[in-house]
């Protein structure tokens, strides 16, 4: 594009503004809500001017919800911890299993490798509920229901295909000659995997891990069905704010802000790597 007319520039500006407003406004509104009490939130007409209060955050962090009639115990902080633990462990397990598998799918063309890789991807096609109902029965019978191990296992349905398919592409992008050169220099298969393939696919592995973390963190349905109160992540725990005496919008908003904060920060920090990692080949000659 050599010359951009003024009209075009103005139109583009408007379009970008509209898009940003559309996507960012809900987040901004929730952010504002989290500093208000239910009364100011529910007043008509709504206003962006109010006296900010930290009462919602205090309630969440202390775990005591002071209602108009009674005090309610909530486990928000332990939910947050559960989210963190489940996501980190799931991604770790997913990387430990997925990265070597991705390498095998990329480099060793064995019989049926394409079919197996596709089957793993197809886990993402099925509606989660379809898998969950029979799984719940199995898990109850073998004692995995309501355990961290069981949850992490099920989380692999989300995490593993993602890691496998993203990282596989990265391994395929490494010119085979570079690995051959290392082998011919006298290093074995595993040394080549560790010192050539892994570092060169590093950005891709990081991007896949990050994405998997966000997906695991945002998961709702698996934990809803398979976990009881003390194993619940924040996504499920937020339901507790809908109480018999009313919906605590302020606390919900504060809970959302706290629970998206880690993934938001992570995504912001790693944005460059994510975009580079997901769009670009790893290495060229």
């Amino acid at each position, binding site marked *: 594009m050599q010359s951009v007319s003024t009209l075009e520039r103005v139109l583009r500006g408007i379009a970008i503004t509209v898009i940003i407003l559309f996507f960012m406004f809900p987040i901004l509104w929730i952010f504002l809500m989290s500093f208000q009490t239910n009364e100011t939130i529910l007043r008509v007409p709504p206003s962006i001017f109010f006296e900010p209060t930290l009462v919602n955050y205090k309630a969440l962090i202390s775990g005591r919800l002071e209602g108009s009639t009674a005090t309610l115990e909530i486990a928000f902080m332990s939910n947050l911890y559960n989210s963190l633990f489940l996501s980190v462990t799931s991604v770790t397990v997913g990387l430990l299993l997925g990265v070597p598998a991705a390498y095998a799918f990329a480099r060793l063309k064995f019989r049926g490798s394409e079919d197996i890789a596709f089957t793993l991807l197809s886990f993402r096609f099925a509606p989660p509920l379809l898998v969950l109902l029979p799984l719940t029965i199995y898990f109850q019978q073998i004692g995995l229901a309501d355990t961290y191990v069981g949850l992490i296992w099920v989380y692999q349905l989300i995490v593993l295909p993602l890691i496998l398919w993203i990282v596989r592409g990265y391994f395929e992008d490494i*010119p*085979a*000659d*570079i690995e*051959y*050169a*290392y*082998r*011919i*220099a*006298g*290093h*074995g*298969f595993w*040394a080549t995997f560790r010192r*050539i393939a892994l*570092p*060169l696919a590093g950005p891709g592995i990081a991007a896949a891990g990050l994405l998997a973390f966000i997906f695991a963190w945002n998961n709702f349905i698996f934990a809803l069905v398979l976990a009881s109160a003390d194993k619940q992540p924040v996504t499920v725990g937020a339901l507790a704010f809908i109480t018999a005496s009313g919906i605590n919008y302020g606390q919900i908003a504060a809970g959302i802000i706290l629970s998206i904060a880690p993934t938001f920060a992570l995504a912001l920090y790693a944005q460059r790597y994510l975009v580079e990692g997901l769009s670009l080949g790893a*290495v060229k*000659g």
Partner: protein
Amino acid sequence: MSLELHDISKSFKDDKVLDGVSLSVPEGKTLVLFGPSGAGKTVLLRLIAGVIEPDAGHVEIAGRNVDGVEPEDRNIGMAFQNFALFPHMDAHANIASPLTAQKQGKSAIEAGVQSLARLLKIEHVLGHKPKELSNGQKQRTALARALAGKPKVLLLDDPLRNVDAKLRFEMRLELPRLLSDQNATVVYVTQDYKEAMAFGDEIAVINGGVIQQIGTPEQIYLSPANVEIARLFGDPVINFLDVTPQEDRDGVFAMISDKRVNLDAGHKHAVGQDCVLGIRPESVLFVAEDHIRAVPVTVEAETPLNEKTVNLCLTARGREIMASRPSGTPGPATGPAFVTIDASHAVLFDKQSGALIPQDESAALPKGEVA
């Protein structure tokens, strides 16, 4: 260590890349694999290196069958056409990689890297990552890495392909000495006939996955096995003239522009056959009009080519002939002229198959007796 290939075949899917290739390189010798791209040269090198396995046949290194031996256990050095440097390691670590694999001590590694870097004049860039190196430096780093492990078999996959002309010229002078110092058995792949002639103790011409000819550079140049090889070796390219050899009591001859060109008596068995006569441009000489075998031509163009001057000539029947002479020697730039054809190094090919018609040594008379 000697290197031998026995009847190697390799297909990818339905595409037969190598078909029954057998080669033998004696210890310490250099074999040049010469052929156009897609001929199967690189695949053959990879089979020797052990990164791919042949469908049939086997590779022997030092008389030992290396089927199933992993690449890291073959004691081979290889330089890749695209360099294949490790992008996340600096030049020093790249060159050191065969030495670390041999579990050498720190000082031994340092000494090995430094001496190679000095030899290849890349000492000043040892701390650079591959992407900070120029193509020439990359190529030298790749070469140093291939040599570092003191391999007994060295595979060089067109290492001068991706470097600029000046460096290619320099390396053409340096490489033969470097290779002979290594005392390794070398397989050198190239598409450049000059490199092939300069480096090879022997040249194997490969095309379409089949070895077409194996011989010393002189053999390949002087008696190419077919028209295609004759065309590939030599610059300016060899002249081809359709002829039908004849014979009278003075010997075997062919007629070119109604002038008699005597052929070697060894070509007697080709008499009456439709042939293609291959004449190197160096054998086409400008002569004065009164020369007994002078063929009249029209000089169309003159082109300097390195140390030679090349003239494109047309015969009376419109056939094109290239004549080449050392620059500075007198010759017509344009216009009518006369040439004579020295057929002593001429080669005859069968017109249909393009295959060389070998001389019948027993029929060949001593040169002096050819009238």
